[in-house]
């Protein structure tokens, strides 16, 4: 059942008036408080100043006049399409269309065989790409973990390589520096068969954490962001404050601060290259008040992520954000309820590109193979909700009711056969729906163990050639590949 790109927006935590109030508040924050920056961003500051921003160099403060911001954000495209390489999983990010996928930069994984919680490797990245490729409800592959077993300067190229070798779905990742960005651009151009082809149908995109909340530009990431924007590679403008530590404890203020950070980032990008594709990347989070750690599974995260989509939609920019960041250490009930709540809320909120939605555990630090299988099921069910209930003559089926008549049944009616693949959500097998007897006969496995079995089965199938032999050779000639 293809459930990607359905329209969300049924859950609207903010009223029209709230949206307007928060938008105005954000413009006020940029005008009054502004952003701070550090050395290395003189050119960016100069560019902003020449166009009308007020720069106080002694206090390192950039203040953005309201009209200046509004003039620039208008130039951001309303629609961004992130392509797959197969053509089957293109993501048309517009209005309230919903796609969910992986996210991460996790550094630990629960080993599929031993169950040990160990550092992630390049091979994990490749295997997870292959796994996700076969899980239909995971719509894109954002690099979920870090290859901690290879040299750091080999990260950027090798991460994109492992992802693209394992799946034909859209691939997104961050890069360590500008040099890394250019290498990745070259790598993807080889895969595309030329730079122009890549720019025309970008099947990779870049995340940059350009803001260090509250209201500070990160020099390295801002420069990478601008470089990607110059080359028209789509960029997600990530900023992820935690309510209670890096943004105020209240949800309204957190939304206003994030919106201000996003308006500033979008302004910088659209000034750097007007019309270049980007995603509004506000990710509202929560600080754990007992430890100040990242509290991914908070129900407020689901509420605020739905709300931040409303803010992005208000300025007509597709958005990138998060769901399913549980604080549980293993794929257990807690993981399931936290993931179920936030994923359903973000989907019903109409969020366009929801990352972290599959695989994550341990407050963003870890992943587990079986969790991808379980989350595929959660995402599928959440998207099924978006499909809604069709009420028309065919679906009302009055004739069918009449022809079967009182006391009959619908099991063999053509109408049942006609609709059983769309009206009935039949998951990937991780939900056990059989009799108790059957379940016992098969070993009485829990969801986690069933998830493992499905993951093993997918990974034991023959590898698919997502990279042609010629491309692979050309890549290996140019770069050191550790896979």
């Amino acid at each position, binding site marked *: 059942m293809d459930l990607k790109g359905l329209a969300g927006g049924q859950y609207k935590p903010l009223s029209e008036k709230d949206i307007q109030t928060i938008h105005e508040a954000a413009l006020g924050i940029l005008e009054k408080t502004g952003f701070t920056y550090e050395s290395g961003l003189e050119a960016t500051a100069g560019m902003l100043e020449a166009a009308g921003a007020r720069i106080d160099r002694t206090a390192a403060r950039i203040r953005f006049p309201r009209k200046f911001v509004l003039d620039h954000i208008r130039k951001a495209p309303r629609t961004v399409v992130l392509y797959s390489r197969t053509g089957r999983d293109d993501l048309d990010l517009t209005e309230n269309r919903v796609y969910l996928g992986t996210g991460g930069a996790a*550094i630990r994984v629960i080993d599929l065989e031993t169950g040990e919680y160990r*550092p992630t490797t390049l091979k994990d990245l490749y295997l997870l790409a292959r796994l996700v490729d076969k899980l239909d409800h995971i719509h894109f592959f954002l690099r979920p973990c*870090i290859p*901690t077993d290879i040299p*750091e300067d080999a*990260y950027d190229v090798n991460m994109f390589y492992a992802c693209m070798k394992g799946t034909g779905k859209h691939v997104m990742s961050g890069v*360590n520096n500008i040099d890394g960005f250019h290498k990745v651009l070259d790598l993807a151009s080889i895969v595309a068969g030329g730079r122009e082809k890549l720019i025309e149908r970008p099947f990779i995109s870049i995340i940059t954490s350009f803001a*260090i909340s509250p209201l500070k530009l*990160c020099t390295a990431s801002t420069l990478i962001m601008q470089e990607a924007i110059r080359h028209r590679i789509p960029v997600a403008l990530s900023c992820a404050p*935690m309510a*209670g*530590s*890096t943004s105020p404890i209240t949800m309204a203020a957190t939304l206003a601060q994030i919106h201000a950070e996003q308006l500033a980032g979008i302004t910088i990008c659209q000034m750097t290259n007007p019309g270049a594709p980007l995603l509004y990347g506000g990710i509202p989070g929560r600080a754990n*008040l*007992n*430890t*100040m750690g990242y509290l991914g599974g908070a129900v407020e995260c689901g509420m605020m992520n739905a709300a931040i989509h409303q803010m992005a939609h208000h300025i007509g920019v597709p958005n990138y954000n998060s769901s399913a960041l549980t604080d549980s250490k293993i794929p257990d009930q807690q993981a399931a309820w936290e993931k179920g709540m936030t994923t359903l809320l973000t989907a019903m909120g109409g969020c366009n590109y929801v990352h972290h939605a599959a695989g994550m555990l341990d407050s963003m*630090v870890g992943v587990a193979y079986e969790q991808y299988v379980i989350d595929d099921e959660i995402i599928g069910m959440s998207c099924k909700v978006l499909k809604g209930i069709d009420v028309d003559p065919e679906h009302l089926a009055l004739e069918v009711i009449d022809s079967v008549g009182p006391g009959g049944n619908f099991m063999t009616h053509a109408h049942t056969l006609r609709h059983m693949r769309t009206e009935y959500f039949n998951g990937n097998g991780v939900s056990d729906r059989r009799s108790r007897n059957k379940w016992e006969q098969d070993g009485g496995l829990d969801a986690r163990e069933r998830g493992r079995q499905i993951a093993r089965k997918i990974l034991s199938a023959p590898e698919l050639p997502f990279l042609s032999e010629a491309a692979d050779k050309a890549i290996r000639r140019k770069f050191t590949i550790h896979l």
Partner: protein
Amino acid sequence: MFNFTAITEALIACDQDKVLELVEAGLRQAVPAKDLLDLGLIAGMDVIGERMEKEEMFIPEVLMAAMVMSAAVDLLKPRLAEGEVGAKGKVVIGTVKGDLHDIGKNLVAMMLKSAGLEVHNIGVDIAPERFVEEIKVKKADILALSALLTTTMPMMRETVAAVVEAGVRNQVKILVGGAPVTQAFADEIGADGYAADAGSATKLVKSLLP
């Protein structure tokens, strides 16, 4: 007998006005400053530390109490003899080069400060040479390094090496921490200790000081 418990309770309630009022009253009644500190304030911080560990108190409350405590200590300082306050140890703390994460590091710094240590929090993205320099200038007893990225953990090793190189390794105890850091890694790079959170970092520092 002076009611020290009242100070302790006011501190736990983060009631700055009340704490200061009670401390002032104590001083007027010629209660020794050292007693007000130990039996009133530090007794309160001990309870707070315990409650924090049991997750019965939120971190913002703990930090607020620490601020109240430090305001009260300022009142007592002129009456305390040398060695009775502060000088329990000097800490230089920072996030290693290439790493910009500072929330956890700042939390550790605040907790150490509230435990009565002299803390020099020198920021993020700090090069090994800069740490060495700060150790020398501040005559630090403890060097605390934070890293949140697998890519910056090697910088901890380099920082330890730079401290050895500079000939000041015997002068300081080195502790490391941050989400990807482990006890095994701390041992491997020759650090003196590792702690998983701010509460245990405080205990660790106390145990490492003479």
